[in-house]
């Protein structure tokens, strides 16, 4: 009897302390054959966090350590003139994005860790500037998250424009899970929307709420490191890191609350739970959640004619399992998942370039181009 009681106690303890998790509804498969291969186009990079493709086909690359690289005619040139980059934990020099009308106005947008302002530490900042030879000039400061903190986590930082020319960016919860994401008077755990010049759109969802951060477009996010405009619908899609399990894909809508950390499919790294619920009224369900976590970063939706096998697929880099994930999504429901190029390295970024080809930033390797296999 004594033994039975102790077994019961242990079982009960485990039920309470070790949270149970529902695995993803669709599991990732290794395809029998892939009709595409990777080819290194920019070698030897550490963490190529962001990349952009200039009209002359050269590539501008942000290295997380703070270096801005212009790759042209097989040569890397360092671009000077960036503000001081605060490198701490997951933060540093992050994303880069061209203005949709870059050809005529030359604006390039950056997100990075900045120690500007009061207090120790730093937070995510957004600037734009123009490439002038090997220097970045005409720098304008568009946004800076507050307060500064020495926490190393969750800077968000992906940049994207929509069809109407609004600029979107993410700031993660900055390691302050229980304070930032659900509070619209604070930065962190948000997707933001600005005009291209940094001004706040009059129809942003919280412009009339007193004390609210007026640049907020949606909230309740953890750490979105992938963001892309859907080429057909024009909606902003994001993927975000969960803790242990609970990475998500979300379609960002004005004023929505995506629930972090009130609802989540994830648990603490230690295995204990921080919430008992996965859904709640007034909070959005993700299009898809990953359990276990793949640590998603970067996002692309394939609509070029170069990849007939992958039409309309959503591609997401996996930092944890070192592959590129292909998701087939019909009517906002995932029906298939594939692991591509397993073992190549930590996929930090994936983009469809103006030339129609897909390029991926792989940590420690460089930038690879995905091309059809020749037999």
């Amino acid at each position, binding site marked *: 009897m004594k033994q039975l009681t102790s077994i019961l106690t242990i079982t009960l303890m485990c039920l309470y302390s070790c949270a149970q998790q529902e695995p993803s509804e669709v599991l990732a498969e290794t395809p029998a054959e892939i009709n595409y291969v990777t080819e290194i186009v920019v070698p030897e990079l*550490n*963490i190529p966090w962001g990349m952009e493709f200039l009209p002359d086909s050269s590539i501008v690359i942000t290295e*997380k*350590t703070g270096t801005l690289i212009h790759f042209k005619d097989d040569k890397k040139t360092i671009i000077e003139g960036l503000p001081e980059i*605060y*490198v*701490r*934990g*997951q*933060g*540093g020099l992050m994303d880069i994005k061209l203005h949709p009308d870059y050809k005529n106005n030359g604006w390039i947008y950056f997100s990075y860790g900045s120690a500007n302002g009061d207090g120790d530490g730093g937070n995510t900042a957004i600037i734009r500037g123009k490439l002038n030879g090997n220097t970045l000039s005409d720098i304008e400061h568009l946004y800076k998250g507050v307060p500064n903190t020495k*926490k*190393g*986590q969750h800077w968000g930082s992906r940049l994207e424009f929509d069809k109407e020319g609004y600029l979107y960016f993410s700031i993660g919860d900055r*390691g302050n899970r229980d304070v930032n994401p659900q509070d619209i008077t604070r930065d962190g755990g948000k997707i933001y929307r600005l005009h291209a010049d940094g001004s706040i759109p009059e129809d942003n969802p919280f412009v009339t709420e007193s004390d609210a951060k007026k640049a907020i477009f949606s909230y309740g996010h953890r750490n979105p490191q992938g963001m892309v405009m859907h080429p057909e619908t024009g909606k902003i899609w994001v993927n975000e890191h969960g803790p242990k399990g609970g990475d998500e894909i979300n379609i960002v809508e004005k004023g929505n609350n995506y629930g972090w950390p009130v609802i989540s499919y994830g648990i603490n*790294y*230690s*295995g204990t739970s921080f919430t008992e619920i996965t859904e709640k009224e007034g909070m959005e369900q993700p299009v898809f959640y990953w359990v276990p976590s793949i640590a998603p970063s970067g996002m692309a939706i394939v609509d070029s004619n170069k990849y007939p096998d992958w039409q309309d697929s959503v591609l997401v880099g996996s930092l*944890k*399992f*070192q592959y590129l994930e292909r998701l087939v999504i019909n009517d906002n429901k995932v029906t298939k998942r594939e692991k591509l190029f397993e073992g190549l390295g*930590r996929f930090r970024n994936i983009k469809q370039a103006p030339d129609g080809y897909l390029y991926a930033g792989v*940590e*420690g390797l460089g930038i690879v181009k995905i091309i059809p296999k020749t037999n």
Partner: protein
Amino acid sequence: MKLFKLLLHFALISSSTVIYSQENMLQKSIEKGQEIYTDFCMNCHMVNGEGVKNTFPPLAKSDYLKNNQEASIRGIKYGQKGEITVNGIKYNGNMTPMGLDDKEIADVMNFINNSWGNLSETIVTKEDVAAIKKD
């Protein structure tokens, strides 16, 4: 004789105070190091220092950490790139510097040196970290 006893007594007390305060220092450093670990390292090296096989090397019972203290500090300070062998498994990853100061690196070293079955006889100080230069 009495004087000798007295002196011995003092010597014992003072030496045990030194040992005690060193232990205390180590304990404090480990506590701070645990916070740093949770913030900056756990994402990849996991909650019990077990790492992710073939991707992120383990720190728990790691022969590499035990036998390569300098290289380990250098890795945290300046980044770690290139092939290393940890507990018989080859890792060829890329850890970039985390932006930690010398004191924070000393603290996190003391934490990982004394957690998950690891035990170190020496305490890492911020001076030790400051003395380690890039290759």
